[in-house]
């Protein structure tokens, strides 16, 4: 939460000047488009007559109605409590979004028919590849962070070379390097393990930096107190420093996880049947690309939302000790 100053108590959307500006902006925006040919024009028929012949008057009336409805909506939402506000705005945005998809004329039965397979095969693969990768990446990140903070030259050099290399190369290149390069060295590796390895190494490099900054954000005094009680390095790290660094580490790590979920689609290039791969192949067969791509997009989004919820739960858990 931002710091809520008590001086500014009036709600912004209830200030006349703000409503005025908002109204003017929306009005001007919609005046620029000719919407008389759409559903809106049809709805306005009683006021403007035949929509297509209404001309400037029709445009004016439509823009006015939209601006008025919009402002009314915003002002009304301003009265609600925080939770209700958030819910209503979310639902409205979602509705707009669905209306946008409706214009694509998608075949819903086709989507419904393919959905189970998309979920059980594609989504399942995507999730387990990402989940295993994020666990390995976190382990790498802790080691990498400790190495980067250590005074040991070897450890530092290896860790910084690693982060530099894997952050510097495109993920797609790493996937190829591992899948096609390792067999050159005599390790034949399956597509799924190769994908997991590539994702883990790449995200481990990013997360090394996240963990490093998290650990560094903890006051020196915590180390001193812990060491002076007699705790060794391991206990100090695991029980004193990392638990305090987690609130700093978790938001960007959640970000990485969500991002990995979608980047895992890159491993489809080596033939892993994850969500994106299936969506494309299923869509190609029957030339219904849009249906499958949108289904996949929705699935990615739903899973991301779940992750966001989990992340906010964990954050709340760690906020306990900060409440006065």
């Amino acid at each position, binding site marked *: 939460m931002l710091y809520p100053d008590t001086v500014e108590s009036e709600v912004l959307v209830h200030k006349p000047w703000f409503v005025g500006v908002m109204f003017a902006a929306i009005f001007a925006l919609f005046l620029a488009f000719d919407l008389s040919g759409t559903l809106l024009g049809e709805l306005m028929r009683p006021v403007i007559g035949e929509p297509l012949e209404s001309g400037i008057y029709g445009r004016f009336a439509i823009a006015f109605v939209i601006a008025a409805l919009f402002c009314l909506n915003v002002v009304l939402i301003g009265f609600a409590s925080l939770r209700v506000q958030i819910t209503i705005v979310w639902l409205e945005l979602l509705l707009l979004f669905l209306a946008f998809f409706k214009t694509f004329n998608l075949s819903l039965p086709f989507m419904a028919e393919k959905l189970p397979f998309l979920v059980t095969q594609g989504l399942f693969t995507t999730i387990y590849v990402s989940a295993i990768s994020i666990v390995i990446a976190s382990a790498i990140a802790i080691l990498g962070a400790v190495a980067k903070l250590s005074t040991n030259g070897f450890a530092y050099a290896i860790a910084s070379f690693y982060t530099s290399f894997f952050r510097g190369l495109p993920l797609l290149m790493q996937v190829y390097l591992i899948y096609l390069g390792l067999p050159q060295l005599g390790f034949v590796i399956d597509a799924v393990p190769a994908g997991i390895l590539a994702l883990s190494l790449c995200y481990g490099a990013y997360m090394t930096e996240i963990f490093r900054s998290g650990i560094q954000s903890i*006051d020196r*005094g*915590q180390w*001193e*107190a*812990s*060491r*002076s*009680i*007699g*705790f*060794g390095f391991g*206990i100090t790290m695991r*029980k*004193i420093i990392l*638990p*305090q660094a987690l609130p700093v580490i978790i938001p960007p790590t959640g970000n990485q996880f969500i991002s990995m979920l979608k980047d895992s689609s890159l491993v489809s290039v080596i033939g892993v049947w994850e969500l994106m791969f299936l969506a494309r192949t299923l869509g190609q067969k029957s030339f219904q690309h849009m249906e499958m791509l949108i289904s996949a997009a929705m699935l990615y989004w739903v899973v991301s939302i779940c992750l966001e919820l989990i992340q906010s739960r964990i954050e709340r858990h*760690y906020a*306990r*000790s*900060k*409440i*006065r």
Partner: protein
Amino acid sequence: MSEKIIDVRNVSKWYGSFRVLTDVNLTVEKGERIVICGPSGSGKSTLIRCFNRLEAHQEGDIVVNGIPLHDKMRNVAEVRKNVGMVFQHFNLFPHMTVLMNCMVGPMWIKGVSQAEARKTALQFLERVRIPEQADKFPVQLSGGQQQRVAIARSLCMQPAVMLFDEPTSALDPEMVSEVLDTMTSLARDGMTMVCVTHEMAFARAVADRVIFMNAGQIVEQGKPDDFFSNPQHERTKLFLSQILKH
């Protein structure tokens, strides 16, 4: 025959080319209460942080509770078990309740059972007179209360000696006395203590010996009565006149 808890012989320490401690000699005997004072930057903190090797010295010997302090990790760990330290900024573990702060030391180092650690912790929280705060988190406590928890946390390890590094200088005036009272009662119970502090009334009341440091050296030491009424060195006189002026 009294027992030496801390024995410092000819200790010198450098930060780069800057000499922080010059040939320091000091012994602390069991049950002794020592106050170290001196101008800012004179090396007081550095000296007592050498006693549990939060800082490493480069020359001379430090023996704590019979164990010589040097690079060997085992020795350092053994010494730290027996030396409690209280910091200027408390350094409580903010993600644990007050009770847990006091329990983790005995549990993770001495392998004491949870029930027993809890009993000890409550006993020492009682001792610093804040048993009712046991289930709060450190941020929910006042500065004085936090410092008393920090003292209890150290006491739970049942150390042979307690080190205090300006324990009251981050506190509001009205909280200083509650911490000093706690320290005074510790002293009355015979705890061996080394305190870096500028609370001269406390030094007069409890110290067996007052040590004055300047520029990394022990310039003067003596019983509080002599030290305050009859300082020998010019530097000590100047320091005392400045600090007692107010």
